[in-house]
Structure formats: structure tokens, C-alpha cells
């Protein structure tokens, strides 16, 4: 089962490897990213960062949707990880999120000019297009939140989107 879908610029890093893995009791992480799946070095680094006891797959977004819908996944606790809102949008369309937690945690600072983006929180900056997509995700996902760390209070993402003009 997919325990959570998360948007994080840095994909697997300390917050994911150490904190969320333990919090959710994960044993599988699907990293859905076309670039990383093609880049041998990034793929290897992500595999290397796999927390103990967790298998990581670094795959293209299409493939990730297939894997997320694979019935064999029922026995596992999985995290679906992307690094941008577009990919999340594609995934939410392809995988019924239902009440699965969808978390936009860290995005927007790594690439692109943040001056042309809306600052939703200290760690989330979205472009106009991404705001539109986030609104659509909000219609599809029941549990759509902003929560970087497990100990942070989950904030409904809808409330952050309301502040965007």
C-alpha cells in the first residue's frame, strides 16, 4: 500500500531516510523521476541512500504509476517520492490517492527563479502553473497536506493555496 506521496526537491535525504521511514514503518520507496531513472549516477546515489531494510526503485513516472497500482504492492508499506508538482499531478491522475496522505514538503527552491513563484511556506515555492495543478490535486486527494517533518503539524494544503493571489 502507498502510505504517502511526497514532493521533495532532494528526493531521499535525511528527513526521508531517517524520519519518515521510521514514522511510517516503510519497507519500499518508489522514486518517480524521469531524469533520475536515466542518470546512472543519480540512480546509484539514491539506491545507496536507501535506509536499512528499505528497497528503493528509481523509475520513470509512468513506470511508477504502474508499480503503485501493482497488486503485489499490497503487502508492502510504500512511499512514493517525486521532486516536482507536475510529476505529482501525473501520479495523482494515474493512482487513485483516496485518503492516502499527499504531502508537498520541499519544492521550488532548487531550480527556476523563485522571484516569479508564490511563496506558500518557507520550503514551498510554486509557479502559477503549479498552483493550478495543486488546486486540481486538491480536488482529487482527500488528505492533501504540507508537513516537512513527522513532528510538524500537518497543514491542509488547501489553506495554503487560499493565500495565493
Amino acid at each position, binding site marked *: 500500500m502507498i502510505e504517502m506521496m511526497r514532493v*521533495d*526537491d*532532494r*528526493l*531521499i*535525504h*535525511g528527513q*526521508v*531516510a*531517517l524520519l519518515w521511514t*521510521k*514514522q511510517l514503518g516503510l519497507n519500499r520507496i518508489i522514486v518517480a523521476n524521469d*531524469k*533520475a531513472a536515466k*542518470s*546512472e*549516477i*543519480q540512480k*546509484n*546515489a*539514491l*539506491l*545507496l*541512500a*536507501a*535506509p*536499512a531494510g528499505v528497497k528503493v526503485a528509481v523509475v520513470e513516472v509512468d513506470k511508477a504509476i504502474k508499480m503503485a497500482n501493482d497488486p503485489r504492492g499490497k503487502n508492502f508499506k510504500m512511499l512514493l517520492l517525486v521532486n516536482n508538482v507536475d510529476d505529482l499531478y501525473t501520479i495523482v491522475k494515474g493512482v487513485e490517492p483516496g485518503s492516502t496522505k499527499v504531502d508537498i514538503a520541499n519544492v521550488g*527552491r*532548487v*531550480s527556476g527563479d*523563485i522571484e516569479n513563484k508564490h511563496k506558500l511556506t*518557507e520550503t514551498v515555492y510554486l509557479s502559477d502553473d503549479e498552483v493550478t495543478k495543486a488546486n486540481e490535486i486538491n480536488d482529487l486527494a482527500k488528505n492533501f497536506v504540507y508537513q516537512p517533518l*513527522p*513532528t510538524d503539524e500537518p497543514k491542509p494544503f488547501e489553506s495554503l493555496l487560499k493565500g495565493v493571489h
Partner: protein
Amino acid sequence: MNNKTTTTKDNKMQLSSEEMKMTKKLFWRNMWLGYCMSYTRQQGVAWDWIHAPVYKKIYKDDPDKFWEAMKRNMEFYNTTPNMNGIVSGLAVSMEQENAKAPADTFDTAGISGMKIGLMGPMAGIGDTFFAGVWSLILTGIGIGFAKSGNLAVMLLSLVGLPPNILIRWYGQKYSYKLGSKYISKAVQDGLMTMFTRATSIVGVTVVGGMIASLVKFPLVFKTKINGTEFVLQKVFDQIMPGILPLLLSVGCFVLLRKGKNPVLVLLGVVALGFILTFLGITGA
């Protein structure tokens, strides 16, 4: 980078004196990565400050390319500082290729892509190992010494420093010289996973020992029942020494695992200490 791998192992790691100078400079500069982090770029500014003299050398004939590199590298960057040597070494070797390549034949987006791609996983490894396991074991042993005022605790840095310095030096040197190849080798070997697992086991053992000797639950309650003295602490000691510290710690663990706020758990424990003391059950 292919021609590098065909040479023998010894030649592969041989650095020219010029390269050695640069490697040393970068090693010392990389010590500064964690300072002055900002919300928008985290360590981005520090990265540029660290690498500026190295870029200057690489692009010494071409100020345009130097400033282009400075601008390009002022991007968001954030990783565990201990692990930065690996990314830094790789980035510098790519900048050198860029300097050698004829105009517009080297795609500098690759450098940025590599940094963005690696900073997360390196932080995943680094936070787990350095912040999670290594400093926990060292502090645990240190507390054991310091608690009894043993000055031998100062020698602990002899054990603490080497992994930090080695990963900084060799991580940077290897990735500079060998490129990303050894990262994939590390994956295939699975050594990293085994190593983290093994050190986690040391950590868990130490935590078990620390609960027994460092978490205090001092019972002072005693009474007389039909003339025989009843000492609460003795009763618990007969069941198992240290059973109350164990239960208290496991209780905290369970609460935290359920997602309870650490500050609330902390306040709860403090309250428990006070209440039990006022009731005369525990005492100092």
C-alpha cells in the same frame, strides 16, 4: 573519463602536484560548508565562497566563464557537510572538463543536475550515519566517562575524528579523480548498507546499556507492614534491576513512535518526576 579507468590503479589515484594543491585547498575550504545558511539557498552561498578560488584557477584565462560558474553555482544546495567532499570533488572535475571543452560543447546543466541529484542521497547517508548513529555512540560513551568526571573523555576525539576526516578527504579525492564510478561500485558491493546496519547495531546496544545505567528512577518509598520493612526499590530490583528506567524509556519510545510531540513527552516526564517526588515515591 573513460581513459582514466583503463590505467592501472596506482596511476589512477596519482595526483599531479598542481592537483594535489587544489585538492588540499578544497579540503580545508569544505570545512566551512555549514555556516550562514539561508532559507532560500541553504548552503548555496557557502558553496560559492568555498569554490571561488578553485574556479578562479580552473577558469584563469576566462573571467566570463568564471563568473558564469559563480552564478550557476549560487543555486540551492543542502547536504550533510561531512559528505560534501564527494559532491565537491565531482563538481570540480566537471568544471575542469568544462574549462577544457571548446565553447558550447559542454552542457553545464550536467553539473547542476549532478549536484541536485546527489545532495539529497548524500544527506540521507550522512544524516543517518553521522547525525544518527556515529555522534550518538560517541556522545553515549562520552557521557559514560564524563558522568564520573573522567578526563579520559578527551581522548574520545581520537576515535571520533577519523571517519569524519577520511570521508571528507578520500570522498573528495576519489570522486575528483575517478568520477562517479565508485558510487555505483559501492551500490553493487552493498557495503554501505551493511556498514550502516552494523553501526546501527552498535548504537542500539549502547542505548540499551545507557538506559540501564544513565536513566534514573530513584524510589525512596518504604513502609513497615506487620513489623517487616517494605522497601519499594528492593521489590523492583528483585524483579529486574533497572526495570523502571527501561519501562519509562520504552514508554517514551512508544509515545514518540505514535507521533506524539517530543516536547509534550518531555514535559510529561518532568511532570511525572515532580509528582512522584511530591508523593514521596521517588526522591533525590
